[in-house]
């Protein structure tokens, strides 16, 4: 059950004219998109331009999105196409990429820090700190919370699938994932300099 319509409700809201719902979708997927694009395109500035154009295109094309694929799959396809066209227009070469390539989130390879807005030692340090804080926080979670959040975010399983694996009710899965997130977020906030009340 991998291609669930996770974001259908948000997509529906955007189609009814709620731009802020699109903002939520952007917020959810923009780093993943940039990571994907940066595997295809070397120049970080190009990556940012392509990512921006991808989101704009996706927004405009939403009325035609039939919901026969998951939103993020559709978004990434737009991203790949946009990247190809962009590079062709700029006369740049592109590394060979399978047409069917879909984002593979968990190849387990340590990624070089892909894209920074400005690649400074400070921003690279911040990125490392975030990664460290999140992973430490997860290590310190009680086992059932750690398992739940891992199965969800890394294995991409649904609550029902996780409930079957962990032999517990779906409501418990939901609660565990929530509590895991809250515990991790608490460790993150001092690093990012945010309080709970601020909108990002």
């Amino acid at each position: 059950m991998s291609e669930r319509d996770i974001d259908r409700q948000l997509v529906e809201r955007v189609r009814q004219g709620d731009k802020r719902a699109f903002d939520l979708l952007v917020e959810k997927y923009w780093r993943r998109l940039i990571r994907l694009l940066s595997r295809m395109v070397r120049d970080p500035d190009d990556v940012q331009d392509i990512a921006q154009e991808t989101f704009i295109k996706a927004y405009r094309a939403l009325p035609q999105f039939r919901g026969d694929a998951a939103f993020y799959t559709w978004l990434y396809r737009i991203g790949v196409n946009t990247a190809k066209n962009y590079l062709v227009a700029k006369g740049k070469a592109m590394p060979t990429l399978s047409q069917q390539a879909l984002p593979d989130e968990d190849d387990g390879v340590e990624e070089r820090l892909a894209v920074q807005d400005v690649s400074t030692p400070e921003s690279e340090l911040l990125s490392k700190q975030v990664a460290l804080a999140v992973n430490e926080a997860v290590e310190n979670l009680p086992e059932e919370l750690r398992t739940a959040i891992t199965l969800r975010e890394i294995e991409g399983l649904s609550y029902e699938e996780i409930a079957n694996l962990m032999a517990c009710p779906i409501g418990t899965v939901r609660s565990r994932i929530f509590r895991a997130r809250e515990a991790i977020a608490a460790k993150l906030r001092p690093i990012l300099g945010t309080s709970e009340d601020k909108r990002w």
Partner: protein
Amino acid sequence: MTAGGSLSRTGLGCLLAALVFTAPVLAAQDDSAQLAAGAKGFQALPQEQAADWLKRMAEAPFRVNYEGVFVYSHGESMQTVRVSSRVAGGTKESRLVSMDGTQREIRCTQSGSVILSTDGGGRQVERRFSKRHFPDIFPEQAAQLTAWYTVALGGISRVAGRECRELALIPKDAFRWGHNLCIDQKTHLPLKAVMVNESGRPLMEHTFAEVQIHKARVRAVPSQELPHALDSAALQVRNLPPGFTKIGAMKRKLPNRSDEVEHWVFSDGLTHISLFIEPAAAPSEPVKGEGPRGMVNLLTRQVGAYQVTVLGEAPWPAIESIGLGLAERRP
């Protein structure tokens, strides 16, 4: 430190391998209500406690003033409604306004309810026969529901920013749908109500998106539900599913039709089934109808000189058993 997941891949692999052959815990279609309740993480309540919960939920709308917005969904259809309810002078008054474009408002008082609609131009006022609406979904004698439903208590959840207790009404037979609810911890007002079928699949749902609830100073008293008698009943109803009684009967016009029909309503307190009786237009064979997700079921057939239509948000066996048990009353 790798920037990947902290659960090592071998560790996860072992976990998955160990658990994939475990028998699934979520038993979906077991007859025993106890097992069904337990499997979902719910505890079935003994009769006394169940009756107590039902009583508190039924009284809640009469003890508080509330105002909020709820979302109703059934299949792909969704409606957003603003609701406000006030307890004053010992009675309860409420108002519902559609927020989806249709200019429609219902006002409910103890004596009945009225629909006000502004459809392009004039204002129309129509009487409506029921004054009940979400979250006021329980009958006055709610404790009697324990005869037909097992009441099971779940955990604490949150709806519209308020803490609420999960509670399931599990049917004891195949004549009614189940209900999964979330009840406000402080006031026992239902904040979420999901009608579910025998597999736990949602059929229709009411959920508050936002709500403010304040205890009223004086509680209201629900008005007596007067027994309805129909004088010249053309037909006898000889068979009702267990727990169902006739709660209403009237001669009325159907919307957009000029002829009068008899409309009877049966209920077990939560489930409602209507029976319509009218002269048969032409001989016909019995026809069964089923709505999306199988929530609404319908039967229409001829009984003597009459065309009878039975329909409601109930499983087919309930509809069928009423429809089968009809006979012309001998003069």
